[in-house]
């Protein structure tokens, strides 16, 4: 029998769901109009007042919010409550050096945990489950987001965080872990190390895993499933909106259910921002209608997908989004971390001497993403000594690591060896087969 964390909400009729959405949308719009000067100005420019939101169709009259808006209001300009009501902050990469900062009230944290608990129940987790959270804990939302959901469910949360794969495996086996949360590439890595250590999937009590924070294919799903002997579920989220658990697959695995009592999803044309019909691929745009600390109106995620509002076989009525099929910007997801080529460029230009002739090469070696920055050797640093060149390489890779939060290898190449393009420079070579 299908299990639900909150059956009345998850299976509520669409009409009732829309009524709730409208009421919450009106409250949220009034809230941002009154408490976020940036939104008030944007709405005034468009000539919209909170009272103009009379139906859900009025949503498309509201301004779009982009990553650039979050950058313009760095760090706390989008917060809709006084700082004393904020209980936590998370952050993710901005398009340049500065991060995007997100604040949560106590109620926001509780809502997030509720979303995550619903997701875990969709993969048959319950009070007696043991959930190993192998997402990174920290400013990244993955670790704490999954953790609070597991606790809310009443399961055992095991805050393993990322890395140290041998120890992860020891815990999986010794603690009888039933569910794991991590990036899909890390799940592959665990599967490989498991067999290197001489274990098989039969040594595990794992039943399923929820994998997200980076793109993965159907082929990779079946690989993870057969190697770990589990069902592999896709989870979606982004820190600007909340973190993981904005949407998640049910066991029919035909799209990811978006928790529509908390989020209103639209698909828009990436160029014009005009709404598209259900089933048409476009930019996923999300409005948060329950968040207090950092509510966002029509946030352009730049993830490309389609929406399906038909009820699902699982009984849930909440709309399903397709697995994101790419992005409308140049953001890369490397080891679960969002990386913008512009961040790398601003580091290189800040170092001086470096001409903006560089290439970013992403690859996947043993299921782990690698990032290499190829730079044409600057004349000023070249001498007959190896030492000086190596110091330069270390300086660049050190600064890139501190800005991106992930390591990068710097590879110096000969002058004029990076292809010059006539139009838009091809900065990124992604060799990963996903």
């Amino acid at each position, binding site marked *: 029998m299908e299990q639900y964390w909150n059956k009345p909400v998850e299976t509520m009729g669409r009409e009732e769901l829309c009524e709730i959405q409208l009421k919450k949308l009106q409250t949220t719009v009034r809230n941002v109009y009154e408490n976020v000067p940036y939104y008030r100005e944007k709405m005034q420019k468009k000539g919209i007042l909170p009272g103009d939101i009379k139906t859900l169709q009025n949503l498309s009259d509201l301004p779009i919010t982009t990553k650039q808006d979050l950058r313009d209001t760095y760090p706390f300009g989008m917060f809709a409550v006084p700082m004393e009501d904020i209980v936590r902050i998370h952050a993710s990469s901005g398009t340049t050096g500065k991060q995007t900062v997100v604040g949560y009230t106590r109620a926001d944290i509780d809502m997030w945990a509720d979303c995550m608990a619903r997701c875990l129940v969709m993969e048959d987790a319950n009070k007696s489950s043991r959930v190993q959270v192998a997402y990174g804990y920290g400013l990244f939302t993955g670790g704490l987001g999954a953790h609070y959901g597991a606790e809310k469910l009443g399961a055992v949360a095991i805050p393993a965080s990322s890395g140290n794969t041998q120890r992860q495996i020891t815990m999986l086996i010794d603690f009888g872990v039933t569910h794991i949360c991590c990036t899909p590439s890390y799940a592959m890595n665990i599967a490989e190390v498991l067999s290197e250590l001489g274990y098989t999937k039969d040594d595990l009590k794992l039943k399923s895993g929820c994998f997200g924070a980076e793109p993965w294919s159907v082929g990779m799903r079946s690989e993870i499933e057969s190697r770990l002997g589990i069902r592999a579920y896709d989870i979606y989220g982004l820190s600007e909106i909340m973190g993981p658990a904005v949407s998640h697959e049910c066991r029919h695995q035909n799209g990811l259910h978006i928790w529509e009592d908390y989020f209103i999803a639209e698909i828009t044309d990436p160029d014009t921002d005009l709404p598209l019909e259900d089933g048409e691929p476009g930019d996923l745009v999300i409005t948060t209608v329950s968040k207090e600390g950092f509510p966002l109106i029509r946030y352009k995620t730049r993830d490309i997908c389609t929406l399906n509002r038909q009820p699902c076989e699982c009984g849930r009525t909440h709309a399903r989004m397709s697995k994101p099929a790419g992005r409308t910007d140049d953001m890369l997801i490397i080891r679960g971390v969002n990386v913008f080529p512009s961040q790398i460029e601003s580091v290189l230009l800040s170092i001086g001497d470096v001409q903006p002739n560089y290439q970013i090469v992403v690859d996947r070696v043993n299921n782990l993403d690698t990032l290499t920055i190829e730079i044409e050797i600057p004349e000023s640093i070249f001498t*007959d000594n190896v030492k000086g060149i190596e110091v330069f390489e270390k300086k660049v890779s050190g600064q890139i690591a501190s800005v991106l939060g992930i390591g990068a290898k710097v590879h110096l190449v*000969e002058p004029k060896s990076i292809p010059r393009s006539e139009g838009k420079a091809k900065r990124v070579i992604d060799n990963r087969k996903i």
Partner: protein
Amino acid sequence: MLNQITVFLENKPGRLEEVTRTLADENINLHALSIADTTDFGILRMIASDPDKAVRVLKEKGFMVKTASVIALAMGHSPGSLHKVLRELQTLDISIEYMYAFTSRHSDYDAIVILSLSDQDAAVSKLNGAGFSILGGELLDQLCKS
């Protein structure tokens, strides 16, 4: 002191071959060379018959090329002769950045070592004072022809 030609080489097949082809086409003779290699690049260091021309033609081919001042020191081709040189440098607390050596057919200068040192001027006066012969480019050219 002598002008050494220094070229940045990516570690990929065919790069060194392009350097030697360029020099061959221009009829430039190589007296000695060494390569310092790391995991992803190499530094080619060469003593050539016409360093100015060598730099120019390599630059025209797009190579990152510079010259560096090094010391060419002649010594006897016999046991302990290099040690005598290093012993002199040691007393001045001069360190060696890198070195490479070659031989010539001339009996007075049958072993030649190229040195890059932390303090070249001090080393030159010390070695001159100790009776070592430091070779210039012209003499080196002659040695290699004879």
